């Protein structure tokens, strides 16, 4: 079986599992909404300031949401030792990782689809005219979060205090991604919206570096 096909099958399994309960999506979306609302209480921004700080707020919310939602990715497999079953399947380990990355990408993207419009309304930020470019930045940034996050979910799944450990491992690694994603988003919310190419390229580079590293290291990550 090719890696792509195996990953697609595992992706359907992850999606079916999630959409039976929608636990992960519901909690993540609500959590991110709470962050967005609390921000308004903490800073009470004027419309001018919203545009200035909005991109940062948005990405901080995504990063926190991601670091919460990615733990169950491998944590869920532990309850019934289902990871052993996956390992025994005649598929490459990268396919297992890739299936989970794609599933997490879909979950986090769905959360963003809910959050971005709510953010635009609450903070009075106009997104008309930049939607296409914003989606590009969101895709590249979200990919970076889920690539590293899925790998670290596998790393932390075996540790004690695993729920707390994952954000600790993940958030420092994502520091460059946060800067690039915020700057790229800010370039779209400026008076003259113009996608910043340097930061967009940087985001793509971040994704490629860590996807390659995951591909090289996935056998070690999932071994018994």
């Amino acid at each position, binding site marked *: 079986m090719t890696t792509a096909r195996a990953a697609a099958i595992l992706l359907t399994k992850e999606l079916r599992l999630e959409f039976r309960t929608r636990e992960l999506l519901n909690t993540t979306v609500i959590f991110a909404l709470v962050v967005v609302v609390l921000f308004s209480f903490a800073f009470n921004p004027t419309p001018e300031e919203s545009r200035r700080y909005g991109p940062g707020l948005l990405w901080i919310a995504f990063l926190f949401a991601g670091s919460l939602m990615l733990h169950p990715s491998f944590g869920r497999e532990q309850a019934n030792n289902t990871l052993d079953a996956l390992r025994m399947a005649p598929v490459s380990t990268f396919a297992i990782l890739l299936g989970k990355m794609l599933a997490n990408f879909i979950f986090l993207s769905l959360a963003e689809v809910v959050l971005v419009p709510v953010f635009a309304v609450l903070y009075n930020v106009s997104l008309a005219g930049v939607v296409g470019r914003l989606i590009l930045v969101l895709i590249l940034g979200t990919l970076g979060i889920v690539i*590293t996050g899925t*790998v*670290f979910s596998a*790393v*932390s799944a075996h540790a004690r*205090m695993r729920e707390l450990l994952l954000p600790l*491992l993940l958030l*420092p690694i994502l520091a*460059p991604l946060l800067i690039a994603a915020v700057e790229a988003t800010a370039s779209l919310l400026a008076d003259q919206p113009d996608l910043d190419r340097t930061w967009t390229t940087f985001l793509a*580079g971040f994704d490629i570096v860590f996807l390659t590293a995951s591909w090289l290291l996935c056998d070690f990550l999932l071994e018994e």
Partner: protein
Amino acid sequence: MKARIAGTALIAALVVFAGYAALYIAPDERTMHEIQRVFYFHLPAWITSFTAFTVVFLANVAYLLTRRPQWDSLGVAAAEVGVACCTIGLITGPLWARPVWGVWWTWDARLTTTFILWLLYVSYLLLRDLLEDPERRATLSAVFGIFAYLDVPLVYVSNRLWRTQHPQPVVLGGQGSGLDPTMGKVLGLCVVAIFGVMIPILMDRYRLERLRHELDELRLEVEARTSDSNSAVTPGSRKDTP
């Protein structure tokens, strides 16, 4: 034992001499005066910590390739030395920055990179503490260590593009850079001194980790034997004797 005492005495003498040279022999800096002398501790600490983190990365890669626990022990020893030196750098930096730049801390590229580096390797050590099975601990922390090291250039480039306040590299920099020759010699001496302190610490820490590893294995063996003979009474007994 004698060689050890002699070695320690030699290193102590080296450190004292380096400290003396930094405080009294090195010439006065034209604009910053006395405070600039923190430079002789700041830069060597940074060089050592970066070297140590590179050793962690190499040890992680070597472990994954060979699966020999020695590499894992080297990784943790180097990470601890690196974090210690990085902490020295992070403390001496603000002490120097406050009188010269007027602020304790600024979010410039090199400061931010060092701070993130420190966070990453503290997480690395934390991760190791929280993983119980020795082999799994070695493998998973090696994967994390490699990811962390790959992140360092990304953090640096992103901050460089973003904002920076550090001087253009003075040491090994481009045109118009360069140190007074005496300053250069004192700096070299201080680098040697801090390596002289850190390498023995690293070696001792490595030895300690090897002993710990051996102890763990012996303990597991004893447990396996006792649980074999007791299995009828208490299946899978024991947990966490400190």
